[in-house]
């Protein structure tokens, strides 16, 4: 589209300064990362901090290697990832379905409004023990926790997207004689794909909260189990390692949702 050979000196300088800014940002990020781990390692070696309590990067790495050897690290990470993905997909799907029902019936939406507000304010993790008793100490109750944490926010945000749909666009469809189902299918749902995807983005984080709390309570497997177990037997290396793996997993999940968003918006 552009003729690259024909840029003016001014434009070349502009591009150069933009590139060097971006480089500086990435460079600083990496430096901060390395410094933190480096100082942590040195401080522990020189006994400035107690590695038994604060752990230490090299000890964490050793834990990674031992746990990888017997495969348990992959099991625990895999379990957490699986529960989180199932949780946030179910949360988004059911949340959207309920939002559709509320959009359909203004009466129901008005009736349920205060309940939703209270449920939204309530920390859903407080229901953890109840769910544990009702469903039992299995993966199922962990997934239900993840679902509970994410579903209310999804309902509220997607429903508000639905009710803010452009009235004139709906009027246009009505002039063609569209019924409610057609209005939903042709304008309300497609124009709210961005709202649904942003709910998906929020739900990745929220589901992880539900999953980790669930694993604390069920205490069988998963990164949450490693953290709570490590804490109880004072294996801080295991705790710290699990937290870092959790951070990486969370970042990867978020990136994959971003990737989905990119694909979908491109299609639209």
């Amino acid at each position, binding site marked *: 589209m552009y003729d690259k050979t024909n840029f003016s000196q001014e434009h070349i300088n502009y591009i150069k300064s933009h590139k060097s800014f971006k480089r500086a940002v990435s460079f600083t990020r990496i430096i901060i990362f390395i410094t933190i781990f480096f100082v942590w390692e040195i401080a522990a070696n020189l006994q400035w901090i107690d590695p038994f309590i604060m752990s230490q990067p090299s000890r964490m790495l050793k834990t990674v290697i031992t746990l990888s050897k017997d495969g348990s690290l992959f099991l625990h990470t895999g379990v957490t990832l699986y529960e989180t993905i199932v949780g946030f997909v179910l949360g988004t799907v059911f949340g959207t379905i309920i939002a559709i029902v509320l959009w359909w019936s203004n009466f129901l939406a008005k009736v349920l409004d205060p309940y939703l507000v209270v449920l939204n304010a309530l920390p859903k993790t407080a229901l953890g023990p109840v769910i544990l008793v009702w469903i039992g100490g299995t993966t199922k109750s962990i997934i239900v926790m993840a679902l509970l944490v994410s579903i209310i926010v999804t309902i509220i945000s997607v429903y508000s997207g639905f009710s803010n749909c452009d009235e004139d666009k709906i009027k246009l469809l009505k002039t063609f004689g569209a019924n409610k189902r057609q209005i939903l299918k042709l304008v309300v749902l*497609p124009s709210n794909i961005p709202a649904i995807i942003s709910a998906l983005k929020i739900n990745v984080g929220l589901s992880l909260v539900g999953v980790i709390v669930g694993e604390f309570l069920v205490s069988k497997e998963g990164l949450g189990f490693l953290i709570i177990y490590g804490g109880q037997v004072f294996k801080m290396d295991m705790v710290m390692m699990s937290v870092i793996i959790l951070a990486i997993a969370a970042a990867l999940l978020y990136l994959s949702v971003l990737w989905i968003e990119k694909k979908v918006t491109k299609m639209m």
Partner: protein
Amino acid sequence: MEKVVEMQDVSMNYHSLGGETQAIKSLSFDILDGEFVSIVGPSGCGKSTLLSLISGILKPSKGRILIKNEEVKGPSKNIGYMLQKDHLFEWRTIIKNVIIGLEIQCTLNKESYKSAEKLLKEYGLYEFKNHYPKQLSGGMRQRAALIRTLTANPDLLLLDEPFSALDYQTRLAISEEIWLIIKKEKKTAILVTHDISEAISMSDRVIVLTKRPAEIKSVYDIILTCENKTPITCREAPEFRYYFNSIWKELDVHV
């Protein structure tokens, strides 16, 4: 000539908890086949309400509206509605946007699809049929919106300030273009506008409404002497100023 629209003593009230607002008060007029009628009036006088009533989206509080001798009971295939903005759906291609009315009315088949393509071809949008609305200029989008309306093959077109979202130059060009299309397709049209020149230059008749509750203040049969009558040439007719001044006085604008 055959009457396409008959308004018989139509009134419309809006209700809110704060009270009742009378938007339209016993309005009666007829619109004949092939006529282009403009409705002007002070802002907020219920012009858009009038179109919503004719299209069947709203029901009148009193009175009857007949379209081709049949009482309006809900949205009908006979009527095409054009709104202020084009409201093309960004996630659909132009052809998909154009056939949305057919989709809703379950009349989408090979034949109707072909006729939609034919309209696009005729009005210079065929090459853009697989483009998305955001790739088109404002004028082209408005044209696509008109084709979307025409595809459902209505007898009567309701134009609710369809040019007001456009800048002045585009507005003149597009109103000319759309006028030519409407005349070529031999459609009856009602245009609601607050632009007096636009009303005079496009219409056979201008109906002036009063402030709310809207009643008919006066009706002007527009007769302009100009060759090759189109909205832009009309603006140069000697009688144009006369109509403009009298309608302006009728509207009685106080700022």
